[in-house]
């Protein structure tokens, strides 16, 4: 289990905390989504969890062992996919994977197998510098899986991918979940979070504003509505199922209804409702 407690970070040491009092835990076989707009502090938290940034306040523990006491061999057990594709552009996709595979002290997955999984088999011999942004993103994702890690950190894993490739990556992430891995995703893609994550946390201004399963958040903060479209003038009308049930029944009985649609709030709607701002900002 991965546990983060009361984590705060101040880059300048002047009391201006980028993230403040962050606490959550992720169990085996769970995908935890950290959602928020750019600059919310998502990457800062991930960098502290992976040891890239120094832990200033709070605790981060892996199965009870603090990040401050772990040895370098611990990195055999984690996989990190960065948002910025940090690869050797002069090396081919396969060479990049082979190089990084050589850094681990545990058996690694064959580069060809991983390239096949992420749909880059045909470009294995092509220089990474000639890859498109989406291809680089997939290669970085494949690199994170090289050592079959117990803990997987994915920073914007579907950024720059077309929908079909993004779906493929989501499928692979779900497969990793089934293997019992602890998966931490930072993203501002609410659709991805809704589709993949067992639990999500909304991060805004460096603090967690809400944390729960997507379903519970929708239930708690969203409203379930039914949209009616009438024949003739094609006028639309929205009804809240919980508060306007009788009004809805009456409308269906009295007017000639063309279409009926149920709709529920998206995570983005809820985020806006809670924070007062959208994810793109």
């Amino acid at each position, binding site marked *: 289990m991965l546990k983060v407690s009361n984590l705060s970070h101040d880059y300048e040491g002047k009391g201006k905390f980028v993230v403040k009092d962050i606490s959550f835990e992720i169990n085996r076989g769970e995908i935890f989504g950290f959602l928020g707009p750019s600059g919310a502090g998502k990457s800062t938290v991930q960098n502290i969890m992976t040891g*890239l*940034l120094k832990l200033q306040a709070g605790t981060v523990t892996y199965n009870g062992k603090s990040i401050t006491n772990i040895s370098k061999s611990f990195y055999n057990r984690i996989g*990190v996919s*960065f948002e910025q594709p940090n690869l050797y552009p*002069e090396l081919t996709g396969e060479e990049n994977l082979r190089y*990084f595979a050589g850094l681990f002290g545990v058996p690694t997955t064959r580069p060809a197998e991983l390239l096949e999984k992420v749909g880059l088999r045909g470009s294995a011999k092509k220089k990474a510098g000639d890859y498109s942004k989406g291809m680089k993103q997939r290669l970085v994702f494949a690199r994170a899986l090289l050592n079959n890690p117990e803990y997987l950190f994915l920073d914007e894993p579907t950024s720059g991918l077309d929908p079909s490739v993004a779906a493929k990556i989501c499928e692979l992430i779900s497969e990793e979940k089934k293997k019992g891995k602890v998966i931490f995703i930072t993203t501002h893609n609410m659709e991805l979070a809704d589709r993949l994550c067992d639990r999500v946390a909304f991060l805004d201004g460096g603090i967690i504003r809400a944390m729960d399963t997507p379903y519970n958040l929708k239930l708690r903060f969203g409203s379930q509505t039914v949209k009616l479209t009438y024949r003739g003038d094609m006028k639309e009308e929205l009804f809240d199922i919980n508060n306007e049930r009788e009004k809805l029944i009456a409308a269906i009985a009295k007017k000639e209804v063309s279409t009926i649609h149920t709709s529920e709030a998206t995570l983005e709607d809820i985020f806006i409702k809670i924070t007062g701002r959208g994810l793109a900002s």
Partner: protein
Amino acid sequence: MKTILIQMAADARLIIKNIFLWITVGFLVLIIITVNFFLPEETAVETVAVAHYGMGLPGLPKAESIEALTEMVRKDDKLIGIYETNGEVTALVNNLSEKQTRAGLSRFFEKENQVPVNYSYTSEVIEPAPFNKRMAPVMISLEAVMTGILLAGVIMLTEKERGITRAYRVSPPGAAGYVLSKTILFSLIGTAYSFLIALFTAGFDIHIGPFLLLSFIVSALFTLMGMTVSVFIKSISTWLMLMAFLIGINTVVLFAYIFPSVSMDFMKVLPAYPMIFAFERTMFGPAGYSGNGFGVLTLWTAGLFILCLICVHFRLLKPHKGE
């Protein structure tokens, strides 16, 4: 070990595709051509000093005995020691050719053909090498400084700029693997360069074993120097300025070899100073390991290795306070 070899192989692939490697290869070819075809075998530019024993030459350094005179000459390549026995003048020289010696002594004799022809070499040098060949150690030293400082530094800086160091930081190898893989690779490249220059200028008539060992040590030394400095640099422009400074300060020492009179105390503190004289001995001296140059250079390399490890560990690979 496997990790180090894999990193070396990857770095080798990267450096082959880097322009700096080809600049240093071009420089290598230029050196070989210059030494063989453009530098003269003899030069009058060098100034030689004269000391004597019992010759009654006022204003010149005087030795108390022939043994003392021999010792003075042994310590100074550019010194001619003269003494007279049974009416015959003998010139003691260490590393000067007959022509240079004649030129150096001509002012004491009315005619040049009166200059003593009795030459006695001190034990340091068997045969003085021609001027152009004696410039080879200068060129080899210059190439070692450039290759060492530039190649590892440029790879390190590129890795930092591309964020690859971040990926390395979340993998098991520590600073030792990182530093060793780069140091070994670039020292091998540096050794190959030095050997090629030596081969095409002085031929096989050098002390090959000590020469290769020395080349490896000095290449490692300057690779470590370049890496240690590069840890702290973020932009290519700052890096280039610093590298130019490092190369410049180390090459200033090379003048001390060509013109002994410009040898200043600060130069002797720099590793390039013992390096160039150690190269000279391994190429032209009677014993490849003579002198304390090897020891000093090994100490420099060991010290820089520790310093580089500390810098890479704490500055590059340890969790940062800020990104």
